[in-house]
Structure formats: structure tokens, C-alpha cells
């Protein structure tokens, strides 16, 4: 029994790594047997060496922190603006009527379409990158928040009303906590978008960060660095999402076992 369950435990740990490992094995063998150009399409062993080089020289951490600072700035700006706007739109029909056409009209414009105008207005540098993160994340937080407020169960509000609670009290103690899971859903979607958009911005509008690392490597024809940069993006994106999931599970502890994540 004990042995079986230990094996099961080990299997569950190893299973997520299986496909990446098999893929890298296939890739290594294919490149070596294929005899193609390993400068354009290097084997994973060479990518690993490039990655170690980038870590040793400190370049990788400089680029990661440059990207993360932009993500943090744009995301924070977005949360600070989007949460209050979303709360107001969900709570007040007048605000909803006032803003919904603007929100729904701007929302479908992808971040990449904002790049030219943001470079024209803000030049090359931090500001367009932060702006692209902001413009990409603000909508999902606004819409999820207002949706969350509108879907607060009526009964919960009735309970507070029949206890003589004021509208301000009901907003603070019933509507806001009841809408919080939806706010967090919007914020979690937004983290993914923020990171995607910062990479897009760095491919074009700014000269540092993980996106720039890839563009630069392409220009000097270093396939190994291009792929090492992609790996770094994958790892950092995964870590960011894990952080948000952790924060969510702490703040929404009462939901544990209630909502399937």
C-alpha cells in the first residue's frame, strides 16, 4: 500500500516534466542527425549553454527586471484606475451608460495596434511600454469588476437592508467582498496580458528587457539566444501567474473548496 502510494506520488511529480523532456530529446536528436544549420536552429544543449552564459554575465537578470518593472508599473496603474471604474459601472446604471460604449469600443483594439500611436506620442522608451501594459490590462479588470458587482446575489443585499444598513455600509461590507472573486479573476487574466504586452512592446518600442533580448539576438543571428530568451519568458510568465494564484488563494481563503479553480 505504502509503496504503491509513494510510486503514485513520484509519478504525479514527474508527469508534468515528461513532455518537455521527451520534446528536448527529440529536438536534440533531430538537429544532430539532420545536419542542418545549428546557428539558425541550435540543439537544446546549445540553448542551455547560451542560457548559462546569459545568467553568468547578468544580462538575463537585467532584462528580466527591466521587463518586470514595466509590467509592475503598467499593471499597478491599471488596477488603481480599473477597479474603481469597474465598481462604479457595476453599481450605478448612469455610470454604466456613460462609460460602456467607450470601454467596449476601445477594448477590441489589440495592444499591437496601439504601438505606432504610442511611439508617435511618447517616443521610444519606458513610457510606451508601460502604456501598452496598461492599455492591454485595464479592460479585463474593469469588465470583470463591474460584472462582479452586478451579480452580487440580491438576497445578501436584502439581508443587510432589513438590518437597517446604509447604502455606504452595504457597499463596503456586502457588495465589495461579494464582488472580490470577480475582481481577482480580472486581475489574474490581466497579469497574463501584461506580460505578453511588455514583450511585444520590447520587440519594437524600447531597447531593453526580454523582448529586446530576442530581437537583438535575431539581428546578430544567434538562434540559441533567441530560444533561451523564449525559455526565460515562459519561466517568468509561469512564475508570475503562480504568484497571483497564491495571493488570490490567501485573500479568498473563504472560497477554498467552494469554487473550482
Amino acid at each position: 500500500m505504502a509503496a504503491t502510494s509513494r510510486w503514485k506520488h513520484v509519478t504525479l511529480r514527474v508527469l508534468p516534466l515528461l513532455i518537455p523532456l521527451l520534446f528536448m530529446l527529440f529536438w536534440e536528436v533531430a538537429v544532430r542527425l539532420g545536419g542542418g544549420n545549428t546557428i539558425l536552429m541550435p540543439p537544446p544543449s546549445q540553448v542551455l549553454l547560451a542560457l548559462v552564459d546569459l545568467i553568468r554575465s547578468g544580462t538575463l537578470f537585467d532584462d528580466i527586471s527591466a521587463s518586470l518593472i514595466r509590467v509592475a508599473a503598467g499593471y499597478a496603474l491599471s488596477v488603481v484606475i480599473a477597479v474603481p471604474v469597474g465598481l462604479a459601472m457595476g453599481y450605478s446604471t448612469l455610470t454604466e451608460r456613460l462609460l460602456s460604449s467607450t470601454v467596449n469600443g476601445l477594448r477590441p483594439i489589440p495592444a499591437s495596434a496601439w504601438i505606432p500611436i504610442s511611439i508617435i506620442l511618447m517616443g521610444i522608451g519606458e513610457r510606451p511600454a508601460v502604456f501598452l501594459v496598461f492599455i492591454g490590462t485595464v479592460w479585463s479588470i474593469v469588465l470583470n469588476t463591474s460584472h462582479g458587482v452586478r451579480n452580487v446575489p440580491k438576497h445578501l443585499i436584502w439581508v443587510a437592508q432589513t438590518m437597517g444598513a446604509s447604502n455606504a455600509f452595504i457597499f463596503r461590507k456586502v457588495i465589495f467582498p461579494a464582488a472580490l472573486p470577480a475582481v481577482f479573476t480580472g486581475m489574474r487574466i490581466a497579469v497574463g496580458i501584461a506580460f505578453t504586452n511588455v514583450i511585444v512592446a520590447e520587440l519594437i518600442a524600447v531597447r531593453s528587457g526580454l523582448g529586446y533580448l530576442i530581437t537583438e539576438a535575431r539581428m546578430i543571428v544567434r538562434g540559441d539566444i533567441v530560444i533561451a530568451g523564449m525559455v526565460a519568458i515562459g519561466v517568468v510568465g509561469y512564475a508570475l501567474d503562480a504568484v497571483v494564484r497564491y495571493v488570490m488563494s490567501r485573500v479568498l481563503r473563504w472560497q477554498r473548496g467552494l469554487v473550482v479553480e
Partner: protein
Amino acid sequence: MKIEARAIVKRFGEGETGVTALDGLDLAVPEGQFLCVLGPSGCGKSTLLFITAGLEKATSGQILLDGRPVVGPGRDRGMLFQQFALFPWRTARQNIEFGLEVQGRPKSERNEQTSRWLAMLHLSEFANAYPHQLSGGMQQRIAIARLLINEPEVLLMDEPFAALDAQTRTVLGEELVRVWQETRRTVLFVTHSVDEAIFLADRLIVMTRRPGRIKTDLSIELARPRDPGSDEFNRLRREVTHLIRSEVDDFA
């Protein structure tokens, strides 16, 4: 009279597609009475409760509470819902003390009173559990404690036990009677269960199908605690069931 309903009319929607839920309902409930409202679904019995609570506006007519017209919800009328309506982000204790927070009572007083109500409804060991961790019966006990801690003069109960299993329903009914006998609040209890109504009520009104009017007004004078197996209980059960049946059959 504690509660007086005067010519209450409630229409939902307008014109051809509109529905009249209540059509000129008059009712007077003296202080301390336990009144059960029984009727087929859609007879407007819950609507009457919501208008009394001030959560719904009557199309015409008015509700008087101690002779003063009801204009909105207030702490003097507490309500219990079929869906329990607990705050899922609050523990049992935090749910129960909600009303005291509304009133701005100090923390020490809130703690003391909440502990008393937790004990009264046999919830003490679940004080720090969240609603989703508890059974339906436990959840409704929390909702009852959360309601009674405010000491409302009138208790409005909208099929509060309908979502519970028969066993839990009986136990909670017995506890409700026990607490009511200690406090003697005025109760308006809406149900579609004949047994529940006869077990709980001083007075029982049966409503007609939509539009709702009062069809029968009975006083139930069985001694408490009541025994659902007794001959008198059975006689009443047959009588009331027959009244309801004829109401449903006429329209079926």
C-alpha cells in the same frame, strides 16, 4: 394591531402581459401572533412578505406597523430567506454579528452576544467555519441566529425550511417554536407545507391561487408542544389539505 395590511394590490408588469399577484388583500396581525401563510405556488404569499419587509412596493394599498405606514426596509422587521443568504466570506460568528456591526456596537459586546447566540442554536463548535463547510441545516441555524440577534419586533420568514431535509426541518421547527415562546415576537411565516403550518402556527391563513386573496382564516388552538401524530393534528391536516386541494384543482 402589530401589522395591518390594507387593500394591498401588487401587479408585476403592465397591460395584457402583466400579472396580478395580490388583489386587495386585507389582514390584521396582533402582537405576538405566530401566523402561517399557506397557499399554492404563485399565490403571492412571498410578495406579501416582501412588501411587509419594505423590500417591494405595493402597487396600491399600504402596510401599517404599529399604525405607521411602512415606507422601506428597517431593523424592526427581520427576514429569513429560503436560500439562507449567508455571507460566504464570513465565518459563522462573523455572519451572526453582522447586524451588530451595522448598529456600530463595540467589539466586546458583539463577541459576547454572538457567543450567546452560537450556544443557543448549538453552533459553538462551528463558530469559525465558513458557510460552505456546513450542512444546510447548520447554515439556516446561522441565519436564524443572525436574524434574532437584532431583536426585530417582527419576524418575516419566506419558506425558510423548504430547502432542508424532513428531519432537519422538524428539528429546526421545534427550535423556532422554543425561541419564539421565550421572546413572543410577531411572526409571519410563509410555507407550502401543511404539516409545518399546523405545527408552528397560532393562526393559519390559506390563500387563493393568483391573484392572491385570503380564502380561509383558521386559528390553531392545539396545545404546545404539538404532536403531529395526534388525532387532532390529523383532523386539521385533513381539513387544511382539502382546502388547498380544492384551490389547486379548480384551476388545474
